[in-house]
C-alpha cells in the first residue's frame, strides 16, 4: 500500500500550527484555576471576570485606539506609496520604496529600542501616541504591499478615460480610482488593525504607563490565578482576528470579481 506521505505531512503541520490555539477556548470554559488536564467542568466565570476587570478594560480601550489610529494612518501613507510606486517614475524610486518596505524585515526589538532612544532624546513623553507612531512604522509596509497590488492592477487608461470625459484629476480619483481600490483599502485597514492590536515589543517599550492588551496580558501571566481569565481573553481575540481576516478576504475577493482581474491568490 502506498503511504500518503505528503498528506500526513500536511496534516501534522496543521495540527502543530493550530492545536495550541484550540487549547485556548478549551481552558477558557474549564472550571478550574489550574491549566491542566483532565478538564473539570463547564463555566463562563472567566469571561464574567474578564468583563468586570477595570485594568483590562482600560488596556482594551488603549489597544483599540492605537490599532484604529495606526490602521488609518498606515493605510493613508500606504496609498501615497502605492500611487507613487505605480504611477510615477522618479530617480531613486527603487531605493525609496525599498526603504519604506524595510521595517518588514527589521527586528522589531531594534526598531523599538531606537525609537525609544530618539523619543527620549527629543523629550517626548511615552504614551499611546508614541505607540501609534511605532505601529504606523511597522504597519505601513503591509499597507503599501496590499495597496500596491490594488493600484497596480488598476488599468491606467480608466483614469485617463475619466479625465478625457471632462472630470478633474480630483473627481477622477473620487469617482474611479477610489471605488476600484476600495477593497484594497479595506483589506489594508483590517490587516494593519490586526497587526497593531497584537503587537507586543513596540507597545512594551513605548507605552509608558499605558498598557495595551498584549502588555497587559504579559503582566498578568505572573499571577497564576489570573491565567484562566487570560485564556478567555485569548479566545475572544482569536475569534476577532479570524473574523477580521475573513472580512478582509471577502472584500479582496469581491474586488477581484468586480473588476474582472485575474485572482492571483491574494494575501490569505
Amino acid at each position, binding site marked *: 500500500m502506498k503511504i500518503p506521505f505528503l498528506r500526513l505531512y500536511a496534516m501534522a503541520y496543521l495540527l502543530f500550527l493550530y492545536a495550541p490555539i484550540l487549547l485556548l477556548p478549551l481552558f477558557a470554559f474549564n472550571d478550574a484555576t489550574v491549566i491542566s488536564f483532565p478538564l473539570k467542568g463547564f463555566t463562563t466565570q472567566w469571561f464574567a471576570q474578564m468583563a468586570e476587570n477595570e485594568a483590562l478594560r482600560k488596556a482594551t480601550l488603549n489597544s483599540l485606539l492605537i490599532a484604529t489610529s495606526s490602521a488609518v494612518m498606515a493605510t493613508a501613507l500606504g496609498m501615497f506609496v502605492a500611487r507613487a510606486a505605480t504611477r510615477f517614475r522618479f530617480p531613486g524610486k527603487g531605493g525609496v520604496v525599498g526603504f519604506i518596505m524595510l521595517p518588514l524585515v527589521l527586528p522589531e526589538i531594534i526598531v523599538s529600542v531606537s525609537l525609544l532612544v530618539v523619543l527620549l532624546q527629543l523629550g517626548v513623553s511615552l504614551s499611546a501616541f508614541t505607540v501609534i507612531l511605532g505601529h504606523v512604522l511597522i504597519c505601513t509596509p503591509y499597507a503599501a504591499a496590499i495597496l500596491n497590488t490594488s493600484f497596480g492592477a488598476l*488599468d491606467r*487608461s*480608466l483614469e*485617463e*478615460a*475619466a*479625465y*478625457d*470625459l*471632462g*472630470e*478633474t484629476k480630483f473627481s477622477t480619483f473620487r469617482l*474611479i480610482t477610489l*471605488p*476600484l481600490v476600495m477593497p484594497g483599502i479595506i483589506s489594508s485597514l483590517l490587516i494593519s488593525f490586526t497587526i497593531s492590536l497584537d503587537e507586543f515589543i513596540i507597545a512594551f517599550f513605548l507605552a509608558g504607563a499605558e498598557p495595551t492588551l498584549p502588555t497587559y496580558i504579559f503582566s498578568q501571566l505572573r499571577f497564576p490565578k489570573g491565567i484562566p481569565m487570560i485564556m478567555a481573553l485569548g479566545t475572544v481575540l482569536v475569534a476577532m482576528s479570524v473574523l477580521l481576516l475573513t472580512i478582509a478576504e471577502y472584500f479582496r475577493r469581491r474586488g477581484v470579481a*468586480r*473588476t*474582472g482581474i485575474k485572482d492571483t491568490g491574494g494575501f490569505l
Partner: protein
Amino acid sequence: MSTSRATMIEFDNVHKYYGDYHALRGISARINGGEFFSLLGPSGCGKTTLLRTIAGFEDISSGAVMIDGRHMENVPANKRPTNMVFQSYAIFPHLSVAENVGFGLRRDPRSRAEKARAVEEALEMVGLKGYGARAAHALSGGQRQRVALARALILKPKVLLLDEPLSALDRKIREQMQVELIKLQREVGITFVLVTHDQEEALVMSDRIAVMFEGEIAQLADPETLYRRPNSRRVAEFIGVMNFLPCQVTGEAGGHIQLEVAGLGQVEIEPAQAPGVTRGGPASVGMRPETLTILYEGQQAGGREAPGVVEEVVYYGDMTYYDVRLDGLDHSVRISMRNVFGRPVLDIGTRTRVAWSPGALVLFR
C-alpha cells in the same frame, strides 16, 4: 461624407522626447474636418504617442498642436474637444453600461430625463439598445468596444481618437466592426483619427493615411495613392506585397525617365512613377502582384511581356499566387491571378509568359 474640408488638426514640427528617447521627430501634418484619418506603422513607431498628443495626455517637447484653429499648448485633456476610445476600452468596471455611457454628461446641465434619453440614443447608435442596465464587466469584447464608442461620442467631440480599437477582437467581429465604424463616422460626420498597425484595416477604413516609421511620417496620402505610388521601398513593403527588380536609371527624354530593368529590359516611365527619385544611377522598380498577368497558350499581351518559369503555386480558391522566375533574374516575382472557371492552374516548372505594363511600375532609390 465630410461636412467640412477645413483643417481640424494641425501638427507643426512636433517633437517628443521620453528622456533621451526621441519618440516623435518633427511631425508636420494636417487632418481635415470630417475625415477618417489613420496613423499606420509598425510597433513602436510613435502612433500612440502622436495620438496622445492630440488628446492632451502627452506634453510635446517642441512644436505645436492645433485643434480647430486653437493652440493646444495649455489646454489639458479634460478641456480639449476630443474624446478617446482606448485600446483596452477602459470601461469602468464598477458602473453599469448606462452609467459608463453617461459618464461624460455628469457636468451637463440638462435634466436627468434628458440625459437618460441621450444615453439611450447613444446606445442605439452603436447597436446596444436596451443594454443600459447591464453590469459593464460582464460584456463581451465587441460590446465593450461599442460602449467605449458610445461613451466617447455622447459628448459630440470635434475629434474622436481611436487607439487600435479593433486589435483585441477576433477576425470576424473585427471585420464587421470596421464596416460599422465607417458607417458611424459618415453618420456623425466627426473627424476620426485611428491608430493601427494593420495595413489592411487602414486601407479599408481611411480617407487618408499617414504611414509612420521611427517617429516620422514617411508618407501621407489616400489609400489608393499609398498602395499604387508608395514613395519609398519601405512604405511599399509595409503596405501589401510588392516585387522589387533591380534597375539602372539611364536617362531622361521628353519628360520620361528611361530605365534598364533586370528581366524586363528597356522601360520608359512617367516622373509621377518615381516619387522619391531625382538622379540617375542604380535603383529598383516595384510591381504589385496583381499588375502582372500570366499569359496562357495563344493569349496576346496588350502591352509587353517577359518569359519565365513557374517556381511555386499557392492556391486560395478564388485566387492563385504564382512565384515566377523571369529569365535573366536571380529571384522570382509574385503574381496573383483571379481563378476563372475552365482555366487550369499551372504546375510548378511550367514555362510561361508574363504580361506587364510600364504604367504600373514604381521607381525607388
